[in-house]
């Protein structure tokens, strides 16, 4: 019905335009070609679909993911690996930025029309709970798919586990590393070993010396974002939500410790805040700061500063002082593969994922050297390729170090309302640094999240 109405409008509009500019030569030409073009594309589309349709049922999978140098590359390599035993397999990767994946997913699922979704899509780990809870009908339960989830770090699998069911195959590693400029530390009389397995109070103590002797802060962070806050929280296995999913912001001892530590970093000048991501990367590559703490994917950006080759080393992050369960390990970012409910050939999708991302050490060995795509797949971490020393990082074996860090990350509860809580805490943090009272800011944050949940 709707289609009819629309097409009759179009036809009417076209007809009118033809009549209206009958003698205006320039306009006429383009207006005239118009209907034929439409006719062509309309005629062509069903044909294209007809062609693709039988193939889709058999051996084709469509995937949405972003980053050509990383995820797209890895997916295509996985297809190559899988093709060895399944020569007819066809993989169609559509490069789609994460925000667009989210928008398309939300739009399709909200309108109840899942037919536009691909077979597999890459999802940010932080958004997994939210999307599966909001649109349970849009995803395929992978629990009994034959994929060996035990081969991945438990904290990583937890992101894509909802109500005890597995919805995602972990891929991109977000294990937190502390990166340090050895040349700057040397000037201050330190080595990266002094920063290994330490607490935040020690880190601040050392940072003050570095600042005094070299004039360089140890850290830079994006103002108004709570990345470091979330990393610190998870390093102690804590979260902004309790086990029932209720916001746990007020009277959360770990959170208070985290925020006061962060505020101390800022006030002591060890951490400088910049206004956006580009400036943050700039502080690393132009040598404004002597280090950073972030997900291991930050290595890629650090390496763009070619003149700093050999000057960087990595180690684990500091742990919180006096908090039970505090560790030197955490996670920031990362993503996992989800199979959508629109997947026509779930068996194929499962088999493909099981034999590549969740089953092939060889695959991980291929993708690591050229893309730096680090696995969460535990068996791959033992591979020789992971043990190669990296010249940029002063010949450290960074990849096997990161894999080891990743296996020690405590699990926490992301929460369905993760982004709401994260933003609310970021607001509280900004206000606290500007001088507001921490307790009352946390109360406001808690009530903001509770308000969002009370729909």
């Amino acid at each position, binding site marked *: 019905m709707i289609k009819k109405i629309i097409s009759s*409008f179009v036809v*009417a509009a076209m007809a009118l335009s033809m009549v209206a500019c009958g003698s205006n030569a320039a306009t006429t030409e383009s207006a005239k070609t118009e209907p034929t073009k439409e006719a062509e594309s309309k005629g062509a589309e069903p044909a294209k679909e007809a062609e693709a349709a039988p193939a889709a049922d058999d051996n084709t999978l469509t995937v949405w993911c972003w980053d050509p140098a990383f995820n797209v590359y890895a997916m295509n390599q996985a297809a190559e690996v899988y093709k060895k035993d399944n020569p007819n397999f066809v993989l169609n990767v559509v490069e789609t930025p994460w925000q667009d994946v989210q*928008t398309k997913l939300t739009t399709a699922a909200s309108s109840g029309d899942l037919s536009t979704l691909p077979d597999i899509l890459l999802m940010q780990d932080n958004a997994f709970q*939210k999307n599966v809870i909001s*649109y349970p009908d849009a995803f395929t339960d992978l629990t009994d798919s034959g994929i060996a989830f035990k081969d991945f770090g438990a904290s990583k699998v937890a992101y894509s586990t909802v109500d005890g069911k597995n919805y995602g195959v972990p891929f991109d590693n977000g294990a937190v590393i502390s990166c340090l400029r050895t040349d700057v530390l040397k000037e201050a009389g330190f080595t990266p070993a002094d920063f290994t397995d330490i607490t935040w109070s020690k880190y601040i103590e050392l940072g003050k010396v570095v600042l005094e002797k070299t004039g360089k802060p140890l850290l830079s962070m994006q103002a108004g974002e709570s990345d470091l806050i979330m990393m610190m929280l998870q390093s102690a296995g804590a979260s902004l939500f309790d086990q029932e999913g209720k916001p746990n912001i007020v009277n959360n001892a770990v959170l208070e410790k985290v925020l006061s530590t962060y505020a101390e970093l800022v006030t002591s000048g060890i951490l400088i805040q910049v206004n956006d991501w580009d400036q943050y990367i700039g502080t690393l590559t132009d040598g404004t700061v002597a280090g950073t703490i972030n997900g291991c994917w930050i290595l890629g950006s650090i390496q763009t500063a070619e003149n700093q080759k050999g000057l960087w080393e990595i180690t684990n992050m500091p742990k919180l002082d006096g908090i039970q369960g505090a560790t030197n390990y955490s996670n920031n970012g990362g993503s996992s593969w989800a199979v959508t409910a629109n997947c026509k050939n779930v068996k194929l999708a499962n088999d493909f994922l099981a034999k590549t991302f969740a089953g092939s050490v060889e695959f991980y060995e291929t993708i690591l050297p050229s893309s730096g795509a680090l696995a969460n797949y535990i068996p791959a971490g033992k591979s020789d390729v992971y043990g190669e020393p990296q010249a940029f990082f002063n010949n450290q074996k960074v990849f096997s170090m990161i894999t080891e860090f990743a296996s020690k990350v405590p699990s926490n509860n992301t929460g*369905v309302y993760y982004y709401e809580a994260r933003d609310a805490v970021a607001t509280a943090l*900004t206000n606290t640094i500007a001088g507001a009272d921490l307790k009352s800011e946390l109360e406001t944050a808690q009530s903001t999240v509770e308000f969002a949940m009370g729909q």
Partner: protein
Amino acid sequence: MSHPKKNITLQKKQNLFGWAVLMPAVFLIAAMSFYPMIKALILSFETGIGAKMRFAGFLNYTRMFEDKIFLQALMNNFIYLIIQVPIMLIMGLILASMLNDKNLKFRGLFRTAIFLPCATSLVSYAIIFRSLFSVDGFINLLLVKLGILSSGYNFLANPISARAVIIIALLWRWTGYNMVFYLAGLQNIEYSIYEAAKIDGASPFQSFWQITVPLLRPTILLTAIMSTNGTLQLFDESWNLTNGGPANATITMSHYIYNLSFKYVPNFGYAAAMAYLILILVAVLAFVQMKVGDKRD
């Protein structure tokens, strides 16, 4: 039209022609805008997560007035509207009348240069503005050199200066855009009027206020309504320049609606209700502007 002697059937025919030519546009708007708007209106009386919606009456509409972030956003939008729109429109008018001068050299270059900002991609514009206003950015460098500031100031970290940066960015981006319509409108004014006024001894200032502004009134009304609408639906600057920060001090209603739809746990009923509040606000303001400005002499 006042032609009492005209043949009635002829007039009817012309009237019908008027309806006929505006119908394609009206039908398209009905299908592409009004139909989805009605759907959204229905949605605004429902609540729920994702696709699971249930009827909720006016809940969403009362809820938004208890929502601190929304109220903040509403205030921000009005601050931008009240300060930025008048300055922008007057600047646009002044520039247009300057560039309408037939004796001015390099008119084409000036016009293109001033139009450029609105054609500049948001990506680069956001990066540039943020770096210009950063602590060690160009603006701070200038202010320190001139002795106005003793050390760099973080403009984007303070609620008031961050809003000022957004307003400056908006002025930079949209003044040339509005100038285009004034320039186009000015072409419909006989240039000889200006020459006659000049001979009569009118200053440029006088001919601006007494000739340009009244004759451009239909265009000014258009730009005023469009700018009001654009400012109350502002999204790009809040999203790209400040990301709503510091601490929601610059967030706009559209930005919040986007967050509620695509970043947070989706709540489309609530987002639709907010969208309708924007409609009501713009409609009231546009109605007032039409009453004041839409007169046929």
